[in-house]
């Protein structure tokens, strides 16, 4: 559990960050620095999309972990009460 919790938070967030592709969003044609500066709006758009997608995924991952901990808590309480 000590490894699963951090990995379960970081890996989905990283996967969500990577899932937003620059090439699919029209950022593939930057051959020189001038093109990057000219179409910087598109780069900002993709970066903001990466950020919002990562934040959304983190929120849902936290809820999933809360559900897992609730199940563990219930099972622990049940076993604790039966031992009494």
């Amino acid at each position: 559990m000590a490894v699963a919790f951090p990995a379960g938070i970081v890996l989905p967030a990283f996967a969500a960050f990577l899932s937003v592709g620059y090439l699919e969003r029209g950022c593939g044609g930057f051959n020189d620095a001038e093109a990057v500066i000219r179409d910087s709006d598109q780069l900002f758009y993709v970066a903001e999309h990466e950020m919002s997608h990562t934040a959304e995924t983190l929120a849902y991952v936290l809820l999933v972990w809360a559900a897992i901990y609730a199940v563990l808590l219930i099972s622990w309480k049940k076993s604790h009460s039966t031992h009494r």
Partner: protein
Amino acid sequence: MSLILVNVVQVLLCMGLAILVLACLEKPVRDLLDRLIGMPSATTFFVRVLGLSLLLLALKEAVIFIDKQDDAWTYSFKLMHGWADMMEPAYAVLLVFAGLITVLVAVLRHGHQSQDVSEPMVSAELDHHGRD
């Protein structure tokens, strides 16, 4: 400058809504979980999960892309659209959390009731033995 202002207003609107919801819910949820679970660390964990989920969803909608060519109407439209978009996942988070707490109450309250019933019996038995 106006772009920064629009982004700041959007962040304030979304975060403000999340903080308002959290301020309304934190104390009752904390009290309920404290009574139900009886573990302060678990209560803190669940309350922080609720808070972080709401704030992250607010951040998700607070980050909006505004084109430099947009006029004031488009700015305000995007602001309100982002605010409305934030509410849908916030409702989903609240529903999931309410479901989670309902399951916890339904399962763990039974144990509390059996303990509440058994405690007077134990004290009555002790009184009885004490009289003997």
